[in-house]
């Protein structure tokens, strides 16, 4: 029997849980250095549930993922209102993997790649129809990302991204064993930060090369004619389109979770994964499985390692931390130099190794590596030295937590 939970029942319950959860955390967390961290963890969990709402709402007992028939990823919750113009879901700059059931929003990196190749000016996507051109779809994605980045910056990475939650949970696992995290040198950290732009450039260039026939009328690589499901029959889908998704660690994580929950059959997923590493599958590839394992192991030692090279974080940073966007970005981390005692706690506790809040002499210290997690603000022992401001208004500022000890 196919059944599902009605959104009209689930959403009020969901809202009440959020409000009660936030109230409890703010009211009952006694340790002031964990107040924001606990709140952030709660928000991350809620955001992950909201992003993959279909896993909670159902429908349950649908035919499970199979080469034929309905697949979990075909379920989009609350995204159909954009119709044929933008049927894959609203772009929100978090790793809301396309390859998961019932997502409410979609990863812009997937959309950017897919709308260049294979769906540039192509009417049929993965079980959806497009009435808009590739350029128009890309325009919508970029407009949404720019708008959201201007308002919230990399807040999405720090507070909403499901993969960020995964890495934070790994950090909590490490803390259970009372092991200190390792620190990358400033030079290495800067290089990793620069790697983001290289990754963005590579996947964009590859997508354009693959989509060259549809875009320019010249097929640079044979077999890269526009069209996904049709292309699948020619054996090109798993190998060429959405190049970043082939290495993205979020995809096997999603598939793994879906498999564990019984939404996907491991026998099918694993069939494609076995074999030489360059053989890639539709739902999971050997390459991104290897990347996930590597990131998982390394994230036990280094905090938020993938966020330092994440191209989606880079894209968000591009539209919030660099001129001309930087000047008008709404959410900022601000430092009061007069109150700073240069203790260096902010620099040591930053999960992504950002340093401007320590090194810069006051003012706006938001940088491209900063994901506005507010860990530095929470840990800063000088009252008002660091502040998170939204539209010039202080929403959270550092307090002298040493006094309460």
């Amino acid at each position: 029997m196919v059944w599902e939970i009605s959104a009209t029942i689930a959403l009020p319950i969901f809202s009440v849980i959020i409000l009660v959860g936030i109230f409890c955390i703010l009211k009952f967390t006694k340790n002031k250095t964990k107040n924001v961290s606990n709140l952030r963890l709660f928000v991350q969990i809620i955001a992950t549930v909201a992003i993959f709402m279909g896993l909670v709402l159902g429908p349950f007992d649908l035919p499970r993922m199979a080469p034929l028939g309905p697949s979990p990823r075909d379920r989009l919750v609350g995204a159909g209102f954009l119709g044929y113009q933008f049927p894959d879901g609203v772009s929100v700059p978090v790793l809301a993997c396309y390859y998961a059931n019932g997502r409410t929003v979609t990863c812009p990196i997937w959309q950017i790649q897919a709308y260049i190749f294979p769906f540039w000016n192509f009417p049929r996507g993965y079980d959806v129809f497009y009435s808009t051109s590739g350029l128009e779809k890309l325009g919508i994605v970029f407009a949404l990302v720019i708008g959201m980045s201007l308002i919230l910056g990399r807040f999405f990475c720090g507070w909403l991204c499901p993969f960020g939650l995964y890495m934070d949970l790994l950090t909590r696992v490490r803390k259970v064993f009372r092991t200190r995290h390792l620190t990358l040198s400033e030079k290495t950290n800067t290089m990793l930060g620069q790697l983001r732009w290289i990754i963005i450039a590579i996947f964009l260039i590859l997508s354009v090369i693959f989509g060259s026939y549809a875009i320019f009328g010249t097929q640079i690589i044979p077999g890269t004619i526009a069209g996904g499901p049709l292309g699948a029959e020619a054996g090109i889908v798993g190998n060429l389109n959405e190049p970043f998704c082939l290495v993205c660690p979020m995809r096997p994580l999603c598939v793994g979770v879906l498999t564990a929950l019984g939404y996907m059959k491991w026998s099918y997923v694993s069939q494609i994964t076995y074999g030489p590493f360059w053989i890639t599958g539709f739902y999971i590839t050997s390459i991104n499985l290897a990347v996930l394992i590597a990131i998982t192991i390394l994230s036990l030692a280094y905090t938020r390692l993938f966020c330092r090279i994440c191209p989606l974080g880079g894209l968000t940073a591009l539209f919030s931390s660099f001129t001309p966007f930087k000047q008008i970005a709404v959410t900022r981390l601000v430092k009061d130099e007069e109150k700073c005692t240069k203790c260096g706690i902010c620099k040591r506790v930053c999960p992504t190794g950002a340093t401007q809040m320590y090194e810069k002499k006051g003012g706006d210290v938001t940088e491209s590596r900063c994901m506005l997690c507010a860990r530095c603000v929470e840990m800063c022992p000088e009252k008002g030295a660091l502040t998170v401001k939204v539209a010039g208004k202080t929403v959270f500022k550092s307090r002298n937590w040493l006094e309460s000890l």
Partner: protein
Amino acid sequence: MITLVLPEICYIVEAQTETAFTPTDKFNIPGTSGPSTISFSINGTYMQASIENGAWKFVGLSFRNLTQQGKLNLTVSAQDSNVTITSYRATNATESGMGSVRISYLVEGNGTQTFNFGVTPNVGYWSVIVQRVYLPQYGGWDISSDGKVTVTGATSGVVVTIMCYTYSTSYADALSQPFYAQHSVILAVGVGVFAVVALCLVIWRVNLRAPRQSKVPRHNRSLTIKHVSMESTER
């Protein structure tokens, strides 16, 4: 006395005979370098078959054990090549799902083949696949405005599939909407982003003015200005 005269209604059904064909039947097309043939690897029937302008026109074509919606009217021709039609499949578009028309054939000889299912180019997306490789339009195949698909890129001994995915009915309706309705999402998003940028600019301007109206005592002003200038040099 009222007399009702009921007109006599006659249903006239034109009797049409179906002719069966088998894989052994060949339909020859005369050509300059010898005749080309059309044949079928499956059994079926047709109501009428005639050759017009070097092309075989089959009316009421029906294949045994294959999925098809109604009978097919097919015009097929070949030059310097022989065509053996191996499969045919047609499904109708629904409200939410697309339909498809698909025909596969084995070709012998390096020539040209033309097919016309009576499906016009603008009702769906057309593809031609040779040995599981998609041929680019104009680079191996083309379609005319009346739906005639001409395949030139097939070599001898390969299986060619001509496929047309016909749009769902609701999708076809969406395409016939006025411009603003067809592009409402990007228009709305564009307006939204413009509003966000405008709002950000306003907030930026307000925040720029704020330090000038600060409550810093006059004797500390120089210090504040000094700090601001240091900041600006760093940026």
